[in-house]
């Protein structure tokens, strides 16, 4: 994929898709969206970047190994369930806090933490597969 057009568009497309994936993740609580689909969009972004600039560039850009990202996601999801210990409610109960950030009330919850964990697991696991496929295929 050495086309100039593709290489010019890829960074813009990637950043837009990454942003959109986070939007989809956050939207997911009450409307269609969520961690899984958000994660898939983010992986597509990484895959496009990899096609344009090579897998090594992507690996450098995401800094952590994809499997480490997946592990962090799994840990986050598990901890999101375990936080309920401190609130004396059963495992995985949704707990909400509403801190005011910059004068705006932001609802944060263990559900969101769990979903972010799912997002990271999908990014890490599917990303790991996609990157190694790109590495071996082509050229």
């Amino acid at each position, binding site marked *: 994929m050495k086309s100039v057009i593709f290489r010019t568009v890829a960074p813009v497309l990637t950043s837009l898709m990454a942003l959109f994936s986070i939007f989809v993740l956050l939207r997911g609580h*009450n409307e269609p969206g969520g961690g899984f689909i958000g994660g898939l969009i983010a992986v597509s972004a990484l895959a496009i970047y990899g096609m344009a600039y090579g897998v090594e560039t992507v690996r450098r850009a995401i800094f952590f190994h994809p*499997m*480490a990202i997946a*592990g962090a996601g*799994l*840990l986050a999801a598990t901890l999101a369930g375990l936080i309920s210990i401190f609130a*004396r409610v*059963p*495992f*995985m109960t949704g707990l909400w806090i509403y801190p005011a950030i910059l004068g705006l009330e932001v609802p944060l919850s263990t559900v969101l933490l769990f979903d972010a964990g799912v997002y990271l697991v999908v990014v890490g696991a599917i990303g790991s597969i996609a990157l190694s496929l790109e590495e071996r295929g082509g050229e």
Partner: protein
Amino acid sequence: MAASIAPSADLSTALVHAPPTAAAWLVILPVAWCLAVGALLVMLRRPIALHPTIAIVGLAGLVLIDGLLLREVAENGPMTMVMGRWLPPFGIAFTADLTGALFALAAAIVALVAGVFSLADINDSGRRYGFYPLLMLLMAGVSGAFLTGDIFNLYVWFEVLLISSFGLLVLGSEPEQIDGTVKYGFLNLVATTLFLIATGYLYAVLGTLNMADIARKAEGLRDSAPLVTLAGLFMLAFAMKAAAFPVNFWLPASYHTPRVVVSALFGGLLTKVGVYALVRVMVMLFPVEREELSFVLAVAGALTMIVGVLGALAQTDFRRILGYLIVSGIGSMLAGIAVGGPGGTGGAIFYALHSMLVMTGLYFASGIALRLGASSSIDTLAGLYRRHAGFAALTLMLCFAVSGLPPFSGFWPKVMLVKAALDIGAWWLAATLLLAGFLTTIVTGRLFLLAFWREGAHAAGEVEALSPATLGPLAVLTGLTLLIGLYPEPLLVMIQNAAAGLAEPSGYVDSVFPGGRP
């Protein structure tokens, strides 16, 4: 902003309000703990030297948690925790009763000793491939399967342990490992699909997936719902997972290919998860249907026993022999489930627990034999007795145990099963059990005679040293086998209570639905 997110309906009637007791957390902790430790290990990619330490500490923690859970359940009866506060049957319930807790503890012990054994068996490349994270995730799946109170959730844990087991099987990426994994994976996916279909069917018929709720609802639907079909579907799916005849051929085809410690884990744990699921579904959820199907189960059990042990007689590869012995043992458990009653169910549970410890131990022995004799075939292995008498003694004890000879743990479940079979007049089943035991003795006798006693080329008097990490796990498992064989009383009482709790699941149902149905 907050108002738009707060639910408009009054949800308080759908939630559990009593705060969970500290003990109730023990029900969910085995799974959460394994997942958390496994995730941590996945994250620590570079310092792989730390992996074994973290994993062994994690598994020791798991043994502790499961031990506390068993104590709690033995004293206070079944315990339930519902995910996310939703009232059952809508919230997914984790319910630990004696059966689940016993299996979970035995599995944790097996995993811990396997973790120690892996110190000498898994090299750096195995660690880099992720042996320890996969081990923790496998244990998350196994613990989840033993402790969940929801049949769809059981399916999910089956998937978790299946995926981890694929990873463990291909560790090393040798062609024959891939070959074994394909057979294993294909057959298991068929079984899993069947399980999923049966679960969907069950949901369509009963409208619930919660096990306690199924047990209650099935009571009133015996005349109208196709429950025997359902039970039959579940039976086939779980029998496939447990490697029962005629769907047993995947096990001997795949269990001898991976690393020894992986074989040991699989031999100890995976088929027993299938047996556990069979016990749970056939005995607790569909007791009347089990009666209907008991003849099929008994015949399948008898054939499994005989086919398994004959297969073992025909093999020369140490690990293949063990694979067939596992199959033969599964037959005894099926026979117990078919016979039913406290003796039959209890015997099946006891046999499963015994088989977990003994089969894992024997796989360790096969690994050590491979290291000492540089061969896995009993045609070429010889003179192991001279090389390490202690190792030979431990293996001999395990051979006795797996044959069901006293004073080892295999004796008591055999006695229970034979007695239970005779009590209901199934003399042919009792005879098959005894015959299988006799043939197993021949199998292990042949194994010991050829690999250990036969004079080898090895010079006499030369004793090889084995590291504590190699011999220790074997000694611990043999010790447990001997202990259970000599002093079975406490375990026997627990198993009898567990079988009674399955036959009359009112304690289980009450723990999920305290104070009756809302």
